């Protein structure tokens, strides 16, 4: 082949290559117009009719809210996934009046959502740098001297609790509490204009010794005075505030982890408020102290009545009450534990079989983020496994499992607030 022939062949090849390149480019541009825009992920409200009974699931990593229909027998029905986009790191939700209120930690925001449609109705800015964690509906607004729906939100990074007027979309007050507050529970006050707010303070400190970042744990009790400003807007003042220390007298702050009170569970019928504390969490592989604790407090005086060591480093707790007894299910690092309160004998000893591990997280070491009980069924959100497990609340038999969106963190029953 001569040089001239080669050059001609090269020129032809070059022409072919250019034509092919342009063709590929045009095809790419034509077919990729949709690729420049975000796909439609839904998130605009329910895509299925509202079920008579359902569980709402908040997904911390998917940043969405989903619903799961519950059949009459308690079996899981259709999942309506990711019906609402929440923003970064939603952590908790509560029902208040006709609305849902969602705490979105990464956005420093509170979302209000119409429960019928599950569409966003309002975004309330809680303020930069607060990192809101948990929420509680203040007692039924009809009991207050102002016809407004109010919620309390704990702010982890500012050591405060914000009182938010859901109707007005404003933060009406913000009060200091203890360090690193997490759980919050509203209780009736002495009269209709008062609300008692109990906040658990985990006292997380970055400069504490490695591995024991919490402590000492405490509660803050706020007595809030609620009034109307005359124009119908709420005015919330602080009547009083006090701190309840939760650690044992011989607690050594320098060497021990605190109780890390992650949840508050009210049992008004027994006159008790339960504090669920993880202590220092178990390390991967099970190493480390296993000092999960349930504190039993008098619901009015907040005196510590009992200190039950249950292990399992629980983060959340839920109650189930039947005709005679009450059981506290705690979701923790190694699974779900059950602690029984016998009507006549009080809370069971942790050494009995009832306090032992109820449901093991299994070899995969799933992290149960939240659980709730409906009838005989225990619904447990498996954060790491992205699924909801349904268990028999008496036998622990695994009845059902359904996959969920990324990072289910909080559950809400349709009749629960």
């Amino acid at each position, binding site marked *: 082949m001569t040089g001239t022939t080669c050059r001609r062949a090269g020129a032809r090849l070059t022409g072919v*290559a250019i034509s092919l390149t342009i063709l590929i480019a045009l095809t790419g541009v034509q077919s990729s117009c949709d690729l420049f825009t975000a*796909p439609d992920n839904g998130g605009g409200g329910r895509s299925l009719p509202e079920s008579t009974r359902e569980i709402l699931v908040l997904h911390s*990593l998917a*940043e969405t809210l989903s619903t799961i229909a519950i059949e009459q027998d308690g079996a899981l029905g259709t999942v309506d996934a990711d019906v609402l986009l929440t923003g970064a790191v939603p952590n908790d939700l509560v029902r208040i009046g006709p609305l849902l209120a969602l705490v979105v930690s990464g956005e*420093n925001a509170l979302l209000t959502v119409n429960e019928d449609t599950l569409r966003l109705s309002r975004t309330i800015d809680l303020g930069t740098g607060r990192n809101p964690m948990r929420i509680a509906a203040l007692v039924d607004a009809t009991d207050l001297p102002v016809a407004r729906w109010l919620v309390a939100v704990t702010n982890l990074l500012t050591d405060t609790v914000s009182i938010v007027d859901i109707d007005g979309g404003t933060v009406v007050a913000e009060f200091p509490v203890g360090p690193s507050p997490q759980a919050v529970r509203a209780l009736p006050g002495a009269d209709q204009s008062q609300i008692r707010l109990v906040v658990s303070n985990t006292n*997380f400190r970055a400069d504490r010794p490695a591995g024991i970042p919490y402590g000492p744990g405490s509660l803050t009790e706020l007595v809030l005075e609620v009034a109307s400003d005359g124009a119908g807007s709420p005015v919330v003042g602080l009547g009083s505030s006090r701190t309840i220390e939760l650690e044992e007298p011989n607690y050594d702050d320098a060497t021990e982890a605190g109780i890390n009170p992650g949840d508050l569970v009210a049992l008004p019928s027994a006159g008790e408020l339960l504090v669920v504390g993880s202590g220092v969490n178990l390390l991967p592989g099970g190493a480390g102290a296993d000092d999960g604790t349930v504190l039993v407090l008098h619901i009015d005086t907040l005196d510590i009545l009992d200190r039950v060591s249950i292990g399992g480093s629980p983060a959340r707790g839920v109650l189930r009450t039947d005709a005679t007894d009450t059981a506290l299910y705690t979701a923790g690092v190694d699974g779900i534990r059950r602690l029984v309160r016998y009507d006549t004998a009080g809370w069971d000893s942790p050494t009995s079989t009832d306090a032992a591990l109820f449901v093991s997280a299994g070899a995969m070491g799933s*992290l149960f983020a939240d659980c709730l009980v409906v009838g005989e069924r225990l619904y447990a959100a498996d954060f790491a496994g992205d699924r909801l497990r349904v268990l028999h609340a008496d036998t622990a038999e695994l009845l059902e499992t359904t996959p969920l969106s990324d990072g289910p963190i909080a559950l809400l029953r349709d009749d629960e607030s």
Partner: protein
Amino acid sequence: MIGFTVLCGVFLVATPPGRSVAQEPTETVVITATAPEEMAPPGTTVIPVEEARRTGARTIAEAIAAVPGIALQFSGSSYEPVLLRVRGSTSEQVLVLRDGRPITDSYSGIVDLARIPLDRVERIEITRGPVNALYGGGAAGMINIITAVPPGPDSVASSATPWSGHGRYSYGSFGEHRAAAGATFTGSALTLGLAAGGILAANSYDYDRAGASRTRENAGGREADLSLSADNHHRGALLEGDAALTLEGSRRGAPGSIEFPTTSAVVDDQRLALTLGAGIRPGPATSLRAEGDLQRLRRRFDDPEYPLGALESETDLRTAGGELAGTVEGGLLEAGVTLSGRYSVIDDLELGQVDRLTVAVAPRAAVETTTAVGGGWRLEGAGRIEYTDQRVVPSVRATLSWAPVETLRFGLIGATGYRLPTFLELFQPVGAFVVGNPNLDPERSASIEAEAMVTLGAPDRHAEIRAAAYLVGYEDLIQWLAGPDGRWSPRNTGTARVRGLEIESRFEIPIRLGQWKPRIDGRFELVQATDTTDGVTDGKQLPYRPRAAAGGGLVLAHPFGHSLGFDMEYLGARPVNAQNTDWLAPYLSIDASARARLPVGGVEEWYLFLRVTNLVDEPYVSTRYYPNPGREIVAGTEVRW
């Protein structure tokens, strides 16, 4: 405290990695090798920094932003940190080198390219796809920053003085001053260089977004660097040697995000790097080169007002490396082998003292033929067997290049690679929310790529078109997952697949506007970066990876040295979470630049330049909660003598 440890190997190698592509700079842009008539190897783009300087670029990040396959994720103004991705990778999977030596550290595995100025840089080589077989790192690709070579004695001989130098100053939006100066003495036996630079950026700036005025606090800093170098290159001597000492210091704010600002957090860095090299050329076809380097990075982070208690960390990372490389050329065959060792030890307030020793042997060979019409084929193969962290990790890279004629070339590349876990991933101490995992395996990658490149108008190459299609698979990806204790820890649970298409073109328009020569660039890429990990994210686009991007530019160049340029980039929507429920909006960013050469006697070149980024003040967000603060204007001057 463990002192520096020097490991020097004694090996044979090809030309050191820093010299992997030809040496001389060119006036043409991307995709060119150093000489106009020479193409860069398949899979590689070479950016002559002089071309980037014409557009007012000041940092490596600004110089490579428009290269297909490269994605930059900004976190505010151009002074604030930038994350780098290559073809849908993570930042940790990209190796950053200076003259072939890694500046990616074992601690975090991330290099902020917004921190590296263009001063004293001659060109930037970008290789896409795994390059471990060539460089010992880079599961997804590498950026090699090649230092400018001082003028040789021949060019100095024609000058009145053996001294040459440069100076540069710029002032930009958000209160940013940058200055650099350097001088080189080229003697008959030795070339000596001295260079220094500094940055002063205001600690807070105001900007308007969504109709509201905002203030970004604690986002500035001050930085300084000093560099000394000596070499006897260009002498044609049997024995060549070089040495360089670099000192860098910086104190920067760490502003956090809008949602969670950290107005008192400060990062202090002190870095010292000493490199030594020596080479011998016993004959025209054989060479032997030994290199050694010592690096020390001391980093201190303080946030005394962190809401959950004061944060502080202090890290002292010391690295010593050495390699011996040799190559033999004969006929159509070129072969070489590199033996290398690198030892890193870290003293950390939290992690304690941790070390890592890596030793490797890396043979390579190439066969090449040429044809009478300027075409030919070349087959290159490289392998590396590395022992590190009590593991043997192999990697290979093979490149087949076929040019039927001088103006057309096809390339086929297959490669495997890996990314070693960082010290943070391995040894992060138990905290409230995170804990490291000492049992991590390296991430693994494998890729195949086909590339076609056409150049027209030889020898000036008035038009170039490059198209590449690739497939990259990742296994054992390190993902931070919530453990049963609620703490997040890294695990080798992820897999991913990235498929993509890149097309870029460059045409010199055959019209003349007086003496001005117009040139247009175009680029388009599709990236399907898919999470294939079992579970709810299977099939989803990896976070922050756009599925499509397009861009183009127009440059008017005057032979005296003036230039005008516009460049636009349209970036498609990017998901911000693994399940792809939330996406950042697509955006169009337009940049403009102008440079004028002043006819001043006594200096070789004197320029004034102006660069405007985000010309139309598009309110885009590159990283969630880190919005672009708006139009940035930089004006400056540069002189060379």
